[in-house]
């Protein structure tokens, strides 16, 4: 069941487009923002609200990389693996995360604290390597810096 808030927020998006279903990406994001990911149940609720079939909505959901169709941990780490970060050694951060958290791309820590995902260039190449945790961008990282950053996400 969508919450009243979710419903209200989605309804507010709809008039911005001439067609109801055009709001579907906004709707997916609205629900994901609150729940972390898009479960089958959320998918069904959103589809119903927008007059779409599950097939139609999932066709959209599975196209976009920021829509998660699998559960994620409390915090999602988006580690940039694009070229500029690659050049300056993003792999050290990846290695650090692998060692410290025991997870690689696509994995979640057993305590569900972190999920690690690769992300394409975060548009902060002058401060590479970078990563995002949830809504926050962290720049100019080295393993020590990353360690401090991780501490602030419980």
């Amino acid at each position, binding site marked *: 069941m969508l919450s009243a808030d979710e419903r209200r927020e989605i309804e507010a998006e709809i008039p911005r*487009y001439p067609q109801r279903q055009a709001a579907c*990406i906004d709707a997916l994001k609205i629900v994901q923002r609150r729940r972390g990911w898009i479960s089958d149940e959320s998918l069904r609720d959103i589809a119903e609200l927008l007059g779409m079939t599950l097939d139609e909505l999932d066709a959209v959901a599975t196209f*976009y990389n920021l829509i998660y169709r699998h559960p994620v941990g409390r915090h999602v780490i988006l580690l940039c693996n*694009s070229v500029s970060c690659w*050049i300056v050694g993003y792999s050290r951060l990846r290695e650090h995360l692998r060692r410290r958290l025991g997870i690689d791309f696509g994995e979640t820590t057993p305590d569900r604290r972190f999920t690690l995902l690769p992300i*394409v260039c975060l548009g902060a190449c002058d401060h590479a390597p970078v990563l995002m945790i949830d809504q*926050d961008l962290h720049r100019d990282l080295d393993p020590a810096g990353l360690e401090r950053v991780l501490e602030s996400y419980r």
Partner: protein
Amino acid sequence: MHPDQRPLTRDLRPDGEALSLPGYERAGGYQGIRQALRLAPQEIIQLVTRSGLRGRGGAGFPTGQKWSFVPLGPAAPRPKYLAANADEMEPGTFKDRLLLEATPHQLLEGMMIAARAIEAEIAYVFLRGEYVLAAQRIQRALAEAYAAGYLGGHSFGADFSLQIYLHTSAGRYMCGEETGLLNALEGKRANPRAKPPYPQTSGLFGKPTIVQNVETLCCLPHIVNHGAEWFRSLGLAADAGTKLYGASGKVKRPGLWELPMGTPLGVLLEEHAGGMRDGLKLRGLLPGGASTDFLTPRHLDVPMDFTNVEKAGSRLGTGTMIILDDRTCPVGMVWNLEDFFAQESCGWCTPCWSGLRWAERILAAFERGQGAESDLEKLDWIVKFCAPGNTFCALAPGAVEPLSSALRYFHDDFLAHIRERRCPYRGGSNGNAGGES
């Protein structure tokens, strides 16, 4: 440098906060739209055409000319749409982020002018989902603009009525391609659309639509305020205006600078980026994002504008350079790039979804020490396979630009991988095989 020679970034706040509406207006903001409202749409289009403004999203298409295909007047289809392309997902590109975060009102004013020129009633800022800060600031700027009556109808005491909405993307490089962007805005998969028909006649929701890069739009208030001649005069070489140039990679001072269009490559690299980090030498660079051909140290004199970079065998693209040093494996770098493109292929046309992944796998094999001479022929073939016109959109042709030029410029590196059956940059104390090492 004289402030008017850095029109886009002149008024940035030193603390990195966004210019608020009053701050923006104190610096002369929202005069351009007022000025534009005194002109007929056709006159704005002519002005922009005369200014020589070319799109900053990568393709460099003349902006005024693009607008001239939009049907105008009372008989034109309604509503017409404008979309600001703030998707910025080209690897190595970080220029629009600055404008979005620091001067959101400049973007809104640019959008108002563009909307006025093509008589659009509805506009969207199509923003990359990861640009969280930018989203907050645009949202705030929109609220200010609506509150001031600059948006929403009868604005500036004229018959000017524009709605601007912020749409944050769910992520895909293809959303930045202008027709993929339209599909994404329609809540669909961001596959590209056939051209013709061009969006100018049949675009968003089937209506005439203009998609314009953020930086392009930000130039508009200044062109209207200071005139086409002024804008042309800013450029040092063939093209007009200023450009946000950037550099990333192992340079001393990676960063972003607004400079006259046509600033020579060497000047950017040495004066602004501070040259290579100590002990490293320049091997090559991608002048404008991941989908441009490599340039090499012998290109340092090239003026960085659309015309001249093209003459040098590459593209200005987004003007944000990615620097390759002599300790980083060019094969590995191209592998990283092709992996990105293969991953972001929308899956619509065969050369792209099959060719790019094939290239990526071959390059991965090189990095594992499993490359063969025949693989070089295959890579050459994939480059031809994905040439412009062979694919449905420009993603794949762009994707093979760095590959094609790497095969030319770094041929010896490929051969070394074959000969040594390993990546020669890997393992050594100062070598960098890049991400996968």
